């Protein structure tokens, strides 16, 4: 095993799948010679050529539309949206077409395609380069949504997404790209979609998170341990289909749950996780299920103080977790 960054794991995942399967190709803005704005596809253009690493016009509806057409015709496209914030112009293609295709054709057609989108804040990206979009898309039946938080999961879930017969929205948190390092198993490493992962065992309370917040929650768990509080950390990894069994299991185990995400609060993923717990583990709860999320404001501010105020961080999660532990 080698220690890699998240961005390296993603690049490697694409590279291996393109080498393995000639129907896999990449399309997006600046993904070619430029190697992508975050260098996710650095070197792939040279290796696979302009027919398999395609620079698109600045038109997200085109990127996704082309991917849908190719997928219908037997290809396995990876469509890169440069920033998740830019996905809105492709909304119609994703929601009205891609998500429904299998249903509309009564299962005659599948769309084996991946939409990669760098998401999340904390990078001074301001209003158009920081948003969280997972709740919006998780609401759409027919789409799968994954949000890995570690290099191993980033690689394994990307390979699973490329091989999946249905459209998968693959969210890669920008802040984790080079911040989070970890060991990635050698060989053909695939992580199944729909399985959450207990990243740290504990017994007093559970922290449930994904993406960048996973890293923060693990740090919080270490700090809590120093004060004698044993926190379990559950990494959702896949947002849809969500791993109900894992959520219920940790809630039943500790009886106290805090859900953390940086996406807006209202109707966010935390609300869904809390509902799952209420429906399935009410009798095991020892405290109200709590959540710590970004606020319901229209976008991530540029002003650094305000950005800091928007983002959940280790300190804020720690305070909330202690409140839960003391309940």
């Amino acid at each position, binding site marked *: 095993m080698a220690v890699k960054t998240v961005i390296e794991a993603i690049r490697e995942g694409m590279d291996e799948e393109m080498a393995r399967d000639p129907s896999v190709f990449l399309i997006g803005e600046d993904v070619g010679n430029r190697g992508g704005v975050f260098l996710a596809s650095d070197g792939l253009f040279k290796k696979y050529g302009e027919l398999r690493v395609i620079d698109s016009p600045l038109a997200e509806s085109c990127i996704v539309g082309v991917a849908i057409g190719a997928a219908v015709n037997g290809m396995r496209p990876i469509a890169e949206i440069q920033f998740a914030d830019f996905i809105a112009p492709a909304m119609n293609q994703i929601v009205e077409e891609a998500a429904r295709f299998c249903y509309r054709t009564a299962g005659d057609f599948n769309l084996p395609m991946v939409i990669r989108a760098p998401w999340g804040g904390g990078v001074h990206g301001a209003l158009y380069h920081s948003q969280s979009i997972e709740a919006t898309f998780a609401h759409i039946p027919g789409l799968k949504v994954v949000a890995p938080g570690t290099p191993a999961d980033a690689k394994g879930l990307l390979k699973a997404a490329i091989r999946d017969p249905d459209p998968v929205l693959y969210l890669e948190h920008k802040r984790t790209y080079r911040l989070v390092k970890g060991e990635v198993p050698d060989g053909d490493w695939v992580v199944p979609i729909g399985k959450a992962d207990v990243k740290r065992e504990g017994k*007093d309370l559970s922290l449930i998170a994904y993406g960048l917040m996973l890293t923060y929650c693990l740090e919080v768990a270490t700090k809590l341990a120093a004060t004698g509080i044993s926190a379990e950390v559950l990494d959702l990894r896949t947002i849809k289909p969500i791993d109900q069994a894992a959520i219920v299991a940790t809630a039943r185990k500790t*009886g106290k749950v805090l859900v953390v995400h940086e996406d807006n609060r209202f109707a966010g993923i935390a609300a869904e996780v809390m509902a799952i717990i209420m429906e399935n583990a*009410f*009798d*095991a*709860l*020892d*405290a109200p299920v709590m959540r710590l999320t970004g606020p319901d404001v229209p976008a991530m501010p540029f002003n650094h103080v305000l950005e800091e105020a928007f983002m959940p961080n280790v300190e804020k999660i720690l305070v909330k977790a202690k409140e839960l532990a*003391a*309940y």
Partner: protein
Amino acid sequence: MTSVKMPQLGESITEGTISRWLKQPGDQVKKYEGLVEVITDKVNAEVPAPLAGVLREIRVKEGTTVTVGTEIAIIEESVAAAAVPSPPPSSKETGELQAAFNTPTAAEPEPAVEQSNAGRTRLSPAVRALIEEHRISDAELMGITGSGIAGRISKKDIEDFVAKRAQPATANGEQRPTAAPSATPAPTPGTTIPLSPMRRAIATNMLKSKQTIPHAWTVAEVDMTNVVRFRQKAKDSFKLREGIDLTFVPIMVKAVVEGLKAVPVLNASWSEQGVVLHKDINIGVAVSVEDGLIVPVVHQADRMSISGLAKAIDDLAKRARAGKLGIPDVQGGTFTVNNPGTFGTILSYSIIAPPQVGILAMDAIVKRPVVVDGDAIAVRSMMNLCLSFDHRVLDGVSAARFLQGVRRWLEGFSEQVPLY
């Protein structure tokens, strides 16, 4: 044979609940070794054995509430301890002797009252499930000290209790009650919330205060603008440095201390022999807790800086909410500060806590247009200070002088006033 009585665990405490016996009949006990845990309306305390010997008999079961002075156990002195031959007093004499020491106002001890836990705190679904699973009785539940916020019994508390209970059965061989089949509920007009020890104590003290103290009430209006500005400026760095919030309460307590120094007759007690002026200034600070109110005391508040007061008050409030106050923490108050203003009230008529002679309520700080020097109208942060005082001890003039002192100190507040 010596009988052990329910001790008086503080002034104005008249009864206690046996929480847990730390020794069982037949056990050897050393002098001052923990014998039993007792819950009162104010504190939880461990009662030490008054002498060395063997615990012969437990007279009051866990979960039962009895009045102070009630016999709760019998200890037989060990041979070594009883080596000095002295004719043991007959049990009748002992009883009379004890009665002479414990002359409670109540003529007869009240019958033991079974306390229900139902109204004490909320039980989470996990706790309820565990109670059912392990068939924990009400009496047993009453004996469990909650470690959660406001004394809530947590899942872990129950698990710890069950683990402890699972240890070898006790000598008295008492059968654990099994869950009774629920009877058909009869229609009832309403619900009775059982009186917690705290509720009962508040009721008694408030009634006694209003029936014996002729309360008088007066209000002063204070311009808090300087204090508000100062706190706004200082609070973040204070929090960073000290790890606790800088609230208005320690500043107010400081002001009250200054006022009491100027008008000592408010730092006093009434007695038939005369008005007792206290040397120490011990300020009670009312803290609301689930199911009631408790007034821990900052002792010798006149020797503390604002920062020292902030720390002392923060510590007391936290322990009050966690149910971890000791007896000294709630005794010896000479004056009380109440802060209903946090809940938005603007005029509060507080009841004096005997034997004190005054209680000051800080009401809400509100921005209002005020006529200032030169007949201009300015927006100022205003607060009402409401003083209830014992009119037997002092008159309106002294009360007004006290309020004036407090007000001047607060209005003259500047950054020159030291925090430390």
